[in-house]
């Protein structure tokens, strides 16, 4: 059964170290390869925790979790090599001494493998993903000198350079102006259609659920309270209690 799904979570519960109460609980989630899913919900709903439970950054405390048919707890490094993760609200010091190209290449570090040096082919992937997000001219710029939106694009290029099978994107539209939001949305739609990557995005903004997204999961207080096709969720009354004009109340 679990092998039919790229992500398979059964009764998952995650508790932070040193805490007693679970941040997410009774999570049952089955995602097929190639799906484009949006997870929405208010702050503290457990959306980020769910993403980090999927890629094993946070260990679940009960239940069963499988990604690519492999048990997450035992195979987290292998799973992460194939899974791109965009972190939410990543803040950076303007003096940070790293160039954009090196940050994008760092996304491939795990995938290339230990004891292996970067090759010309790896750099080609870096230039390609920087080109995809329209940041190729920024390759030799210090990363700390970028605007919030530019930096977000570099982080996106970083996960794309990894050539992941699953993309986990935590608030990919935060820090972006309207034009950049449209650009990133178009880009995500294109990547999903062209490469058939499984995409899971977390968002608090219903108005920016990409058009390729076919399923929406609504979370509240650590539980999945709705999981349905995009159209059904958007037309449901329950969603109006959480969102007003597409934005969290």
């Amino acid at each position: 059964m679990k092998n039919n799904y790229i992500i398979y979570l059964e009764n998952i519960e995650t508790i932070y170290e040193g805490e007693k109460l679970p941040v997410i609980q009774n999570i049952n989630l089955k995602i097929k390869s190639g799906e484009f899913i949006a997870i929405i919900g208010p702050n503290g709903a457990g959306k980020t925790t769910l993403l980090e439970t999927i890629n094993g950054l946070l260990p679940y405390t009960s239940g069963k979790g499988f990604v690519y048919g492999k048990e997450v707890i035992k195979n987290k490094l292998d799973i992460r090599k194939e899974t791109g993760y965009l972190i939410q609200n990543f803040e950076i010091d303007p003096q940070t001494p790293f160039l954009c190209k090196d940050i994008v290449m760092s996304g491939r570090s795990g995938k290339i493998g230990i004891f292996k040096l970067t090759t010309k082919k790896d750099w080609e992937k870096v230039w390609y993903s920087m080109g995809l997000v329209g940041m190729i001219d920024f390759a030799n710029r210090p990363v700390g000198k970028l605007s919030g939106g530019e930096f977000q694009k570099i982080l996106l290029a970083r996960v794309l350079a990894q050539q992941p099978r699953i993309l986990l994107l935590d608030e990919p539209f935060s820090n972006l102006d309207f034009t950049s939001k449209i650009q990133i949305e178009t880009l995500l739609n294109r990547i999903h259609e062209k490469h058939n990557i499984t995409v899971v995005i977390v968002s608090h903004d219903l108005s920016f659920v990409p058009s390729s997204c076919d399923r929406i999961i609504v979370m509240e207080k650590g539980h999945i309270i709705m999981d349905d096709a995009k159209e059904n969720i958007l037309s449901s009354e329950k969603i109006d209690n959480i969102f007003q004009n597409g934005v969290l109340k």
Partner: protein
Amino acid sequence: MISLPWFIILPSIIGAILAGFACSTMGAFVVRMNLASIGVAMSHAAFAGAAFGVMMGFDPTITAIIFSFGTALVIGPLAEKARLQSNIIIGFIFSIMIALAFIFLNYAPGEAAKGSALNILWGNILYIDFNDSLLLLFLSFFVMIFIFVFYKELISLLFNRKLAEASGINTKIFYFSILFLTGFAVALSLKLVGGLLVFALIINPTSTAYQFFYDYKKILIFSPLIGIISCLIGFYLSLMVDFPIGASIVIVTTIFFAIAIYVSPKRYKGN
């Protein structure tokens, strides 16, 4: 100026160059990864270890390495999960290690032992012998290989540990490798720079290089270069005006840092 024959000075000069290289290279990791407090604790543990060696009549370098590693083994995992904050590490470990060092030195038998204990406290230009230089050479070589082979993992880790983990790197191995290599560099440089000041040789050259570059590759090149130059100038100063060598080196690194802060292109608007 103190005049000494070359066969006595040469191991010290080589030792100074290698200590400058090893400490300042590890500094490039320690500074970026905010490991300064653990490093200070480790360097003082190495000092306490060396004092213990003097008291017991063992090789102080060996006991310094054991104490330094022991501290890394205890504090490393605690600090890694942010369960122990840096001010607590400094406040607690620093004072207990210095207290232990003074107790060990107090019980050091005979005047000769007390003399070598003082050398460990503030360093001695002539205390480094051929074996110490050889050990530093091995360490420097190993550090270079480590950086060359794991460059992509290290850059990823230095930028952000969580992102590095998210892309499938086992960051724990690199975190502890960096701690242990730093412990080695500190313990082997103790005789030259002294237990109280050795950590300045780790922090100051990297902090100086930080003022000029936005590319970490350049910081990894210039930090050891500044460390080596500082050690050589400090060495010369020590011979010229009979300063303790550790103090001379630290003064030189501090002057470099002050100049770097003043002329740093990063401080100007638009940079």
